[in-house]
């Protein structure tokens, strides 16, 4: 059985150690924070100047002045802080963020990421902070389905969609497993979802997968 969305987030969360500062992209990656227990102190950052995001607010206890990059209402945990946009992106662009997890359209075997525009002719795509995060975080993981809805592989030899960042993806978490990008080699299978075989993952990828050495 491949991982479902919740299990994918939980699988990525399992690999985040205490002490890391982590930025989660809008959409699927945001769910990762729900899978990290509060006792394991991971500091979640949001581009709009929030460092130290806490658990989702209880109904009736929302703070309307406190939102994340996806415009959802959040909380701040004790020890958390606020800053302005330039400082927030100094954290990101200055290499202070240990990990960023983004969604993806395609990841190439050299670590290129495409996740913002679906064609060169799309003249008004929304980039948000994706290029800053893709270039600036110490580590970049991608959380995405292994294929598109119509079955097209998203792990590829070279991205067809316009690039977000060049050669910076370290790891990909999909419904089929966990894949590391090794420089000069390509995709290495770190883990597979229960019941998923190497051959199945390979058949749903458009680039060569390598077994761990």
């Amino acid at each position: 059985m491949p991982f479902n969305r919740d299990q994918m987030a939980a699988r990525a969360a399992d690999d985040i150690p205490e002490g890391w500062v982590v930025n989660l992209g809008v959409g699927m990656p945001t769910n990762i924070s729900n899978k990290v227990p509060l006792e394991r102190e991971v500091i979640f950052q949001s581009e709009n100047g929030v460092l130290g995001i806490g658990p989702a607010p209880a109904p009736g206890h929302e703070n309307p002045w406190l939102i994340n990059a996806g415009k959802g209402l959040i909380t701040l945990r004790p020890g958390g802080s606020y800053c302005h946009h330039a400082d927030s992106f100094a954290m990101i662009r200055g290499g202070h963020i240990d990990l960023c997890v983004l969604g993806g359209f395609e990841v190439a075997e050299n670590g290129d990421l495409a996740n913002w525009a679906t064609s060169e002719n799309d003249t008004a795509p929304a980039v948000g902070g994706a290029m800053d995060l893709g270039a600036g975080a110490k580590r970049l993981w991608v959380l995405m389905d292994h294929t598109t809805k119509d079955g097209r592989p998203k792990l590829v030899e070279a991205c067809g969609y316009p690039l977000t960042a060049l050669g910076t993806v370290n790891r990909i978490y999909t419904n089929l497993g966990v894949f590391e990008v090794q420089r000069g080699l390509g995709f290495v299978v770190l883990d597979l979802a229960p019941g998923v075989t190497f051959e199945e993952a390979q058949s749903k990828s458009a680039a060569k997968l390598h077994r761990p050495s």
Partner: protein
Amino acid sequence: MINKIVQSMADALAGVKDGSTVLIGGFGKVGQPDALIEALIEQGATDLTCVCNNAGTGRAGLARLMELGRVRKIICSFPRSEGSVVFEDLYKQGKLELEIVPQGTMAERMRAAGAGVPAFYTATSHGTLLARGKEEREFNGKMYVMEHALKGDVALVEAWEGDRWGNLAYRDSGRNFNPVMAMAAEMTIAQVAHLRDLGEIDPEKVHTPGIFVQRVVHFDRGTPWT
């Protein structure tokens, strides 16, 4: 006596010229100077370049200003979002210029303008469509893209509290783009939920020192979601 407080929204926006570049603070509805945008609609300036993270949603505020044909160009990081219908229509009809900027580059370009830095290099967008036509240069074995400072004629910002010297403090994530926009404009106009006497805002907690602010107007907007 220095007194930057003005008594009406009309006074706050007085003198904004056609062709101005207007920096508009806020991220989502939080820290967004709604009343000042409404006042800009009333004020009448046109042929504007607006710098804002989003290209407006629904039919009010920035979207209304665009629908009235008063905006020539939008500079933003995230033009398409839920409800950005006016932007979509105008853009499709070719009635609106668009410059997409990575969000961190957008913030830094304004910070640079405020700090007297004409241009800078960043790794963000290297090798992508957004770096096309820009100077790229290698430092320490890594490629960087040159970006220019982004200066405003006017900045519209929202703060939780302000005083007659123009000192501002924001609330929670309402800070966002507001402090860098306040720095980057010739004339910064602040909409504040609470007016304070001088000294009432703890000097340790002033986020935007009054030097960056030219006008302050009181407007208690209630919560950002009403």
